[in-house]
């Protein structure tokens, strides 16, 4: 503690350099913590939305291929199945192209049985079942577009369905799979489309989580060797497989974060080297009045570590604040961005990165300075 003043005063010796070094470290650690936090979206979605009794069935050939609508009745007859709800991803646009949010057509009959955890507004589901053009919108969507229950909206079909749907909002969803999304009736879409009878996914609800593996096996067996074989998975596995497509992106983000940290570490090393080089004479003087070299080495490293930790606090703080802003405005930036948070392990990793930057940036120049002969160091400047 008695050396704290010395360390702090040396840090403020060149305020501009210290501030610039802190800022560069802060920016690098901000990027690092933000990038490394991306995978938490997967955990967030899995933890918050996956149910242990829901099963997703899609075609074995991949998401682009539909399943026949007729499968619904056959799946419903499987033992331990409580509800079956087919869905189609409409992917419509509200007003502008930038006004996109997931909008899905589902069968209305069992929506409340299938997703009781969505927090439907009172009376919303009943109206949804009565009115063919009804839709239920997430509260995030309502807020984002200043919508109200009873309002009529139009979604323009885009890539998947080149048709428009005119919908009446009959209720809201408080806690769906994304902060902003909308569901409307699949029979309405079928009618507009000319009843092609195609389904993207079948959502199946089991009567217990123990029954899930048996249902998956049974349904897959039922449609084996058909023209549209199914691949059923528990909801957690299904969402995990969707998120799994982003794994490479997450890995790249992590690598990019590390590259940024290493690069800034080199910049910080240059700053530390300059600072120490300017003080070789002082270091020699301190040694000549009795400071041991290892103590001076520790003091010099402490300066760098304090600088890096200041950068860490700034960088992490900025990342935290920015992700908070994202979570508030996530409707604009996409449904998953709001789910990204800086988890405690990432904070620890960032802290560790900061300490490493502090250590490696100063160790070599500091060691070189304290190993120099006192006589030579004094003579060099004088």
């Amino acid at each position, binding site marked *: 503690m008695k050396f704290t003043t010395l360390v702090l*005063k040396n840090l403020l*010796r060149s305020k501009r350099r210290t501030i610039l070094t802190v800022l560069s470290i802060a920016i690098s650690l901000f990027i690092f913590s933000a990038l490394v936090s991306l995978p938490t979206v997967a955990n967030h979605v899995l933890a918050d939305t996956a149910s242990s009794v829901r099963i997703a069935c899609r075609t074995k050939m991949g998401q682009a291929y539909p399943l026949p609508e007729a499968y619904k009745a056959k799946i419903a007859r499987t033992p331990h199945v409580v509800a079956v709800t087919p869905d189609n991803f409409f992917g419509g646009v509200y007003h502008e192209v930038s006004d996109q949010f997931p909008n899905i057509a589902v069968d209305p009959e069992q929506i409340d049985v299938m997703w009781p955890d969505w927090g439907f507004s009172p009376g919303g589901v009943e109206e949804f079942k009565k009115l063919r053009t009804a839709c239920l919108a997430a509260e995030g969507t309502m807020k984002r577009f200043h919508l109200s229950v009873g309002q009529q909206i139009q979604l323009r079909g885009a890539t998947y369905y080149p048709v428009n749907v005119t919908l009446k909002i009959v209720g809201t969803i408080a806690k769906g799979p994304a902060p902003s999304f909308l569901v409307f009736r699949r029979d309405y879409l079928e009618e507009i489309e000319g009843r092609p009878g195609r389904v993207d996914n079948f959502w199946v609800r089991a009567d217990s989580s123990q029954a899930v593996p048996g249902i998956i096996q049974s349904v897959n067996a039922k449609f084996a060797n058909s023209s549209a074989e199914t691949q059923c998975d528990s909801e957690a596995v299904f969402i995990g497989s969707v998120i799994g497509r982003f794994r490479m992106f997450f890995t790249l983000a992590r690598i990019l974060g590390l590259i940024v940290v290493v690069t800034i570490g080199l910049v910080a090393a240059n700053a530390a080297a300059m600072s120490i080089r300017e003080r070789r004479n002082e270091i020699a003087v301190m040694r000549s009045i*009795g400071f041991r070299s290892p103590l001076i080495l520790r003091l010099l490293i402490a300066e760098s570590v304090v600088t890096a930790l200041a950068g860490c606090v700034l960088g992490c703080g900025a990342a935290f604040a920015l992700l908070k802003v994202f979570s508030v405005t996530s409707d604009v930036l996409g449904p998953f961005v709001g789910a990204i948070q800086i988890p405690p392990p990432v904070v620890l990793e960032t802290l560790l990165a900061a300490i490493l930057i502090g250590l490696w940036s100063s160790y070599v120049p500091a060691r070189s300075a304290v190993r120099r002969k006192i006589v030579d160091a004094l003579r060099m400047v004088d």
Partner: protein
Amino acid sequence: MNGKEAVCLERVSRTYKRDDFEVHALDNVTLTIPERSFVAIMGPSGSGKTTILNLITGIDHPTSGRVSVGNEEINGMNENQLADWRARHIGLVFQFYNLIPVLTAFENVELPLLLTGLGKAERKTHVEAALEAVGLAERMQHYPRQLSGGQEQRVAIARAIVTDPTIVVADEPTGDLDAKSAEEILSLLAELNRRFKKTIVMVTHDSRAERFADTILRLDKGVFVGAESSLVSGGAR
């Protein structure tokens, strides 16, 4: 003189290698400096004055011979032992003061005390006493840039004496000062010697030192060529 030795150099030589050449900075020098004496070592540039100080303070090592300070032989000490030893026994004053620019006068003087086990209050008492002794009690919170050269050197002297070292070693302490300030610094060193019984070894070009030091040693080309006291024993050339 009371007979106790503060510094003893026995047949000390120091040779530097500069590329293919060997420079004999000191050549078989023997010297005894008694406690409480004020010794000025004088001589032209390159005569080996600073080398003697470097050997006495343990920041350089002799090529041959034995160096003892306060009855401790320092030749065999490693770097850490030497650092600890310097903290206890040596007070150093440099030509260019060498104060830490980001620390106040108080903090500069406190610096060597950070290596001791003294508490904050005790350190404060010691620092204030040292600054009082050099006449800078009222400039404690000033930074070196806010002080004159003479005042900076006074702070450096306070830093040198604050730990109550066995010996104060000054390398050209007046070399960067005007005549008036130089006189004041020499007078201060003499005062420290007389009042606080400090052993002072000073290297200087300054002829005024002759009026203040009680012993003058003259060095040329690495050997003593004259002494205005009986400190140099027969071994000296």
